[in-house]
């Protein structure tokens, strides 16, 4: 690894004098304690898990704002000095780039201190929050107020936040698991300093901002997600009424080749909303790691883990080759009826094993999977990082139709590429209404430079080979964002850059995010 310490680091194209002037203005606007420039303050902002040097994503500074007016002030300074800023909310986008900027030298705008829960309406089941609000904070708020509502969140639930997760189009595990679908109303600071509210938010005195998404004319919410056209400072979203009964279920299947039939079993139940939540079909390594197993408990040799070892892991941890998690919600009568339908379909499949809370008790991974489906925060899934150890983690997340044949193809292809590079398939399918998010954690040891190079080559090959077959990922870490933008075609990129030129001519908002950067030739 080369020497690229953060000392004296500047944003691209910005000279020292200009940068120092901007820093002085930031201090004046935000207070010196909210402008971080010392290396020891910036180290945790650049701890990445990607197959590249930490220094390639080192920030030159980090600033924290506490009000919308301060965000407007930051944007003004950035325009004056052409300072590129990388905005984070809670910054817990682990495996997708964490808190580090997409390009070396960008100034981080950290909105963690904007952490007010502005409104929760228990009757309408809506919330309006600032960027720094965490799911745990919101969970505690609902508990304290005894509101009969529940949350949907991603696996780093307790410490991540709804605004950031939704802006990155993350998913959860409840019936409200497609988070952007449940979003309703945004407030966005644009690059020119204007404060834009989507949907009904622009109508003076209107109170339907969090209940009616569309407003009038073009609906623009989506263009601010996974994008760099504005800084979201408030977000509304819908909360699910907490049902009187929740019944988590696990179906274990013994063979890897069962995947196609599993999807065919689940899809009709999912589309018909008999099973209303985002069902997970998780492989052995994922579940074993979340249950506390480490690869080194079983094998010391480098390379991918042989099938014979995985079989042993399954026996020890009481896992299937595929482990399917679903949950039924409603009154006891509703749950009973739906269970009968689900159980009937499962029995017709003629294989596998069904576990309920009664059989599984408090064992992992059933416990944490159940909690996520019931809206209870936990951090159990971080155990994935201990499977191989070494701090390397990159999510590869292609989408597909919810068809057995598609999953069969994607699984076989992913596993063969990962194993070829000496890495394990640690993956799960998340069944949306009609789609599958195939989420694979490419786990590797960053202390080993050779393995890091292999992981990098592996990720590139995954992107290339999936693209050749018509697949693309829905989200990716900052190292590969420009590469993935290429998969979606030139017309889309030209349009995105046209919008960028119109909205942010100085290219100050997160240039490089999702491959959008006015320094590109579009």
């Amino acid at each position, binding site marked *: 690894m080369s020497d690229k310490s953060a000392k004296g680091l500047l944003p691209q194209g910005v000279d020292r004098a200009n940068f120092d002037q901007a820093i002085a203005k930031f201090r004046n606007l935000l207070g010196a304690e909210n402008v971080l420039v010392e290396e020891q303050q910036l180290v945790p*902002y650049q701890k990445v898990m990607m197959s590249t040097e930490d220094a390639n994503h080192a920030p030159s500074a980090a600033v924290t704002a506490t009000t919308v007016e301060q965000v407007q002030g930051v944007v003004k300074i950035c325009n004056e000095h052409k300072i590129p800023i990388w905005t984070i909310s809670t910054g*817990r986008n682990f495996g997708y780039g964490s808190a580090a900027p997409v390009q070396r030298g960008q100034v981080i705008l950290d909105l*963690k201190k904007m952490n007010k829960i502005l409104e929760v309406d228990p009757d309408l089941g809506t919330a309006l929050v600032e960027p720094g609000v965490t799911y745990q904070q919101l969970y505690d708020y609902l508990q304290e107020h005894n509101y009969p509502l529940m949350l949907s969140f991603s696996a780093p639930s307790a410490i991540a936040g709804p605004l950031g997760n939704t802006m990155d189009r993350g998913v959860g595990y409840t019936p409200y698991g497609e988070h952007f679908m449940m979003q309703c109303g945004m407030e966005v600071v644009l690059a020119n300093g204007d404060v834009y509210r989507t949907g009904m938010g622009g109508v003076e005195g209107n109170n339907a901002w969090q209940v009616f998404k569309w407003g009038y004319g073009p609906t623009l919410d989506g263009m601010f997600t996974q994008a760099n056209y504005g800084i979201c400072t408030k977000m509304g979203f819908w909360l699910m009424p907490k049902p009187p009964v929740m019944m988590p279920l696990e179906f274990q299947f013994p063979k890897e080749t069962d995947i196609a039939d599993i999807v065919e079993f689940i899809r009709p139940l999912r589309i018909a909303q008999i099973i209303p939540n985002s069902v997970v079909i998780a492989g052995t390594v994922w579940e074993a790691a979340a249950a506390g197993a480490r690869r080194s408990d079983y094998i010391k040799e480098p390379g991918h883990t042989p099938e014979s070892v995985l079989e042993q892991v399954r026996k020890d941890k009481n896992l299937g080759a595929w482990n399917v998690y679903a949950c039924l919600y409603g009154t006891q009568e509703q749950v009973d009826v739906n269970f009968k339908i689900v159980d009937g379909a499962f029995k017709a499949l003629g294989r596998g094993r069904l576990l309920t809370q009664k059989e599984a008790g408090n064992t992992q991974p059933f416990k944490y999977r159940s909690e996520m489906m019931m809206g209870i925060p936990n*951090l159990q899934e971080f155990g994935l990082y201990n499977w191989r150890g*070494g701090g390397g983690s990159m999510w590869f997340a292609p989408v597909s139709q919810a068809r057995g044949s598609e999953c069969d193809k994607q699984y076989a292809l992913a596993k063969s590429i990962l194993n070829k590079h000496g890495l394990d398939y640690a993956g799960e399918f998340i069944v949306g209404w009609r789609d599958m998010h195939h989420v694979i954690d490419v786990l590797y040891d960053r202390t080993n430079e050779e393995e890091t190079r292999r992981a990098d080559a592996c990720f590139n090959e995954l992107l290339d080979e999936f693209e050749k077959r018509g697949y693309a990922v829905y989200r990716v870490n900052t190292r590969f964002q420009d590469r993935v933008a290429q998969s979606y075609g030139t017309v889309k990129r030209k349009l995105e850059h046209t919008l960028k030129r119109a909205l942010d001519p100085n290219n100050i908002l997160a240039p490089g995010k999702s491959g959008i950067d006015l320094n590109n030739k579009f």
Partner: protein
Amino acid sequence: MNTDRRSLLKAMTLGSLATIAAGHSGFALARSAATTSVSTVPTLALVGAAVADSGFLRGIAASPAASVVRAKHAGLGVDFILELEQRLQSGQSQRVIGLTDDASATLIVDLARSAGARVHWVSLHNVSAESARHHLVPGPGGTATTAQLQRELDAFEAAQGDWSALLGYRLAAWTATADAASRFATRTPALTGQFVSFSIEA
């Protein structure tokens, strides 16, 4: 080794690390004979389950800063993480050092970031009987103390004993002065596996 220190170490290795407060009978971290001037800032040492039996805590106990260090198990429990978050954001001057697994360290270091704390040291360690790798984040550079510790770890050989004792001693004392660390590093078998160490100042 005197009886107090032996019972302390036994308590630590048995996992009685919930809160090892200086001065509590049988749980106080032993004072070192060394007289190196070090910080007296209250310090929390976080250790993973696999580390409790290692030389890491012995290294801390042997350091001149031992009397201000309390130790605690790190984990993935929400309660532990929220308590640590509250602690880091309390405004109290303090240090948090540790040697944990990757999962816990990922959370701990990020809590330091969101608390606006200074992170003096983050390093990934992969140590087996055959080899040892210590990967400093963000790479070469940093302070004299950081650079010296990195050099010492890189130069450390298995025959010298347990690298984690050296690390514990150095993270607790946090000075660039070459002193007794290597002595304590020779007393225990080397800790093997994958870990992350850190030193945080809030």
